[in-house]
């Protein structure tokens, strides 16, 4: 299988990411979850300030706390929570805009799969005047799919570029 990053592949994956973002912004969470493989992981580690961040130093070792450490089942629980109509942090729902850019594709270590990096800017407006802006990067593993979505997300690692979270919660998806 080819590992060439063709313009067609670039366009196809970018379009997939845009469609995925649109599903989130339209609150079509079940359709969004269907884009993940059953064995998918969805993680966002906590950001810390530490010495070894000196340029060129290796990352820290040991267990890392996460803001998200989910799989397809627990993502489904989060969606079920929203569907109860009693999840007050998203009732009424936040208005979001998921902007995705800097899409950089590399062949994965499994033939036919791709590691896709992108930057995101996620704007959230909530109730009367709450505004949160989240900026960071995502590292996705995309696996080909033959069920119409073309691709499935097998892994999503999210890096949020913020120390102390300035938002009161992370009740939305990244």
């Amino acid at each position, binding site marked *: 299988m080819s590992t060439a990053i063709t313009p067609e592949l670039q366009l196809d994956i970018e379009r997939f990411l845009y469609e995925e973002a649109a599903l989130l912004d339209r609150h079509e969470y079940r359709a969004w979850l269907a884009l993940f493989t059953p064995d998918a992981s969805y993680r*966002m580690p*906590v950001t*810390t*300030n*530490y*010495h070894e961040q000196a340029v060129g130093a290796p990352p820290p070792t040991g*267990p*890392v*706390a*996460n*803001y*998200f*450490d*989910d799989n397809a089942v*627990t993502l489904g*629980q*989060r969606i*079920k*929570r*929203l569907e*109860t*109509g*009693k*999840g*007050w*942090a*998203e009732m009424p729902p936040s208005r979001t805009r998921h902007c995705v850019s800097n899409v950089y594709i590399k062949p994965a270590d499994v033939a036919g799969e791709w590691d896709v990096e992108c930057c995101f800017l996620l704007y959230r407006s909530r109730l009367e005047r*709450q505004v949160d802006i989240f900026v960071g990067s995502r590292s996705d593993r995309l696996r080909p799919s033959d069920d119409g979505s073309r691709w499935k997300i097998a892994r999503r690692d999210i890096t949020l570029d913020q*120390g*102390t*979270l*300035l*938002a*009161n*919660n*992370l*009740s939305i998806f990244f």
Partner: protein
Amino acid sequence: MARDGATPEDSRRGWSADDIRKLVDVETGTLDPRVYCDESLYQIELEQVFGRSWLFLAHRSQIPKAGDYFTTYMGEDPVIVSRQKDGSVVAFLNQCRHRGMRLARLDHGNTKFFTCSYHGWSYDSSGKLVNVPMEKNGYCSKLVKADWGAVRVPRVEEYKGLIFGCWDAEVPSLDESLGDAKFYMDAMFDRSDAGTEIWGGVHKWVIPCNWKFASEQFCSDMYHAPLSHMSAILAVMPAGVPPEAVQWPTEGLQWRSESAGHGTGFHTADDQGQLLAAIVGPAVAEYLMASRPRVAERLGATRTHAVNGAHMTIFPTCSFLPGINTLRVWHPRGPNEIEVWALAVVDADAPQAVKDQWGQGITRSFSPGGMFEQDDGENWIEVQRVLRGTKSRRQPFNLQMGIGNEQSDARFPGKLSYVFSEAAARGFYTRWARMMAGESHAELAAAHQPEVR
């Protein structure tokens, strides 16, 4: 620093001791909401409450080795908590004595010296000033370094792995200040000789609300749980359980400290860990159930079987949920904002797979992205916003639940109420008002008067 009731009136910014006491009326069960939004009261709080209370600093396991340090806050004051060569723990203001620069700007680390990045004054791990650039040529060797050490937190004490500090040298011991709270804390922190440790790092996030909303809720408020958290309960229940079958338990007790402001509440009916399995994971619940015989030998059957789904606050700002095992501090950031610093606590001698699932389960339930935690913030923020109005901040809040219904229970020490009660909240705010009014530690040790009937 005001002690022995000697607070000068001008440091109370127009609030007399009597005015402050009137904000909390436990006889009628009413609370003046200005306690949540008045800037002057907040400044008094920083001195009278945060300057005189035992405040949680760190868990022992966060700084295991000599030279390990963790940076945190006491109220709004940044402090460094540092492990010494002899194993003791020292805390000092995270501020250079020269021009006030923050000494340690990292979250944690290991170091022999804290060197200020401004002009290079250097302090050892106990806060002693040990090196000053240009000491000979610039200061003509006349600088008395012994006078310019970092400002020490005079009292640092530990209970079952929890390190607390207090700015007031005269405060009674941590052990005495906790009192009967220790009985309830032990159900989480003293399950074995190995004790507990922190898994992963610290969740830190900002909520635009007063610190007392959060702290009081963990102290006294089981009442909110069935409604505020129903969506999360429904979401984590195993598939096939119909929503109408999900009933919040009704049996239970609440405990309040007689004078110290601490409180806890819990359900006494044993659900065999079903809810814990749904919230933090089946491996954790299985581990907790399997450990019951050995824990019962240590703590007795009551705390092994009859303390379920507990919430607890050590006054003023240290809160935790035994079983789920989140531990957090509500750092005040003005009257209208807090920083939540939350930790995952696990049994130090649990299998690694259990520890990992525990940490993961806490992340999914009680963290900024946690399915349970999200909805708490929503409530506190909206109350705080409503209190911007002049009419809304003049309506007394209702704090009447359970007045006249205190009870005793041979299994548990101290003042008890039904699990759905606000007795612990009344105790919390009474402690607050008494500290704010400038009562001395000797006066504060006496039970609240009038007692909640």
